């Protein structure tokens, strides 16, 4: 019993010395916050807190945070929406009678993106959508600090078409189909 008690006191004293060292070590703040630096793990003393809105941790420019879509390069294949585990991407396509154009990597665009919404409140930042994209138009950016007061604002819309344009393209497609049908029946 006496031995255990003595041991308890000695270990308690050791712990108290450690916390006291940290208490006085808190006068300094940790300087190096960039994880890419070689000596990042050498700095073990001082306050670690990053006072967020006023100071930010340095992040690489290839950081993978919020999604961004280069809609000009999108062929509206819907693969990203299918890959998404939480179904945060909503895509609606309108077919085009003829080729619309080419993406920057040479893929042929045949569909209009009538709707391309990503609900960032649902997104879990897994990056599966960026992996499956054939034209690499959906990418993760270094943007992470976008707080909204309205939840609906977190649904990012990437389509460049107005409602009238969508209506017009839909009408074009129905007219094209009707013409094709008529040509077949002739």
């Amino acid at each position, binding site marked *: 019993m006496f031995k255990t008690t003595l041991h308890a006191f000695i270990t308690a004293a050791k*712990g108290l010395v*450690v916390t006291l060292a940290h*208490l006085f070590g*808190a006068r300094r703040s940790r300087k190096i916050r960039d994880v890419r630096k070689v000596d990042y793990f050498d700095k073990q003393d001082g*306050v*670690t*807190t990053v006072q967020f809105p006023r100071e930010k941790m340095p992040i690489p420019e290839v950081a993978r945070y919020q999604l961004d879509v280069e809609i000009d390069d999108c062929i509206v294949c819907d693969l990203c929406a299918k890959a998404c585990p939480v179904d945060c991407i909503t895509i609606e396509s309108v077919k085009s009678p003829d080729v619309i154009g080419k993406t920057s990597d040479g893929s042929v665009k045949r569909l209009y993106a009538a709707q391309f919404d990503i609900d960032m409140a649902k997104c879990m930042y897994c990056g599966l959508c960026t992996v499956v994209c054939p034209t690499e138009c959906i990418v993760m950016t270094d943007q992470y600090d976008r707080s909204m007061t309205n939840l609906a604002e977190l649904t990012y819309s990437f389509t460049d078409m107005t409602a009238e344009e969508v209506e017009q393209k839909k009408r074009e497609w129905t007219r094209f189909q009707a013409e094709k049908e008529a040509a077949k029946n002739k």
Partner: protein
Amino acid sequence: MAFYLTYLIIGIVLFGFIAGFTLFAVYSERKIAGFVQDRLGPMETGKYGSLQTLADILKLIQKEFITPSAADNILFAAAPVIIFVAVFLGFAVMPWAPGMAPSALNLGLFYVLAIISVDAIGLLMAGWGSNNKFSLLGSMRAVAQIVSYEIPAGIALISVVMIAQSLNLQEIALNQGIKAASPQLFIGLWDVSGIGGILAWNVFQAPHLLLAYVIFFIASLAECNRAPFDIPEAESELVGGFHTEYGGLRFAFIFLAEYAMMFLVAMIGVVVFLGAWNTPLPNIGALKLADWTTGLVWGIFWTLSKTLLVVGVQMWIRWTLPRLRADQLMSLCWKVLTPLAFLCMAISGIWRVWVMV
């Protein structure tokens, strides 16, 4: 009439002091916790978060009284009052400076120990009145712990009282400095009356009193339910212990009582062991440091600074040591502290008869 007015003013001043101390202590506790864990603690409200506790108390004051439908209304409402009043009344006999104490009772020390024990009833009322198994478990633990640890704490204090020969806190304080009527012996060998300072404090009057102070300090941590003995409110096991169901001003009073208790037990330790309002600086020849630093204002200064230092140590310990298990808590009390306290008391008796003749 003027008599009662003085009573009222003293009560209000003491309450104001306790409230101010609690605000300060909660802030410093959060800061110390932050620094120990390499964090910053509160930073947003006011400069360096200094208005944080003021904002907290304003929030608590504005909140509604919520009583659970299954709770015992009377017990539930009365418990915070009893818990706080029990601790508050303890301050009635604590000496602050030479000739300055709210009440210089002859049985001061005995009164403090007795009135602190009422706290346990309040805790049990809070736990039982909440009609909640976690609250009841917490209060059962609290009462078991407080009642057990009163024994080593009390006996450690008795071993000092045997040396000091008085239960009057003001007299115990007086006998630890240059104003003492009876001669003091540093470790029972060197007559330090007239020299005073740290040498005349009770902890150094006899070697075993240092051990008695350690016992008292550990037991006092347990009595005010502080970590590492905070099993009554063990957040990880019991939600919040006996104050789970409390909110608003009632919770504020339980919190106030907890911090007032910290200050009170630290102050008892300071008064009985660490020289009360006496200066730690001794007279060295022509350098009359002790004479220069003794007086009404100095007395308050020394009492306050020593007590705050002890409170700081309590916080330091809280953020270092993990919580004890209930059985470890009991075995520490009954198998280690109580026998050691009895040993201290026995040595005190021998010391009184053979050394201090």
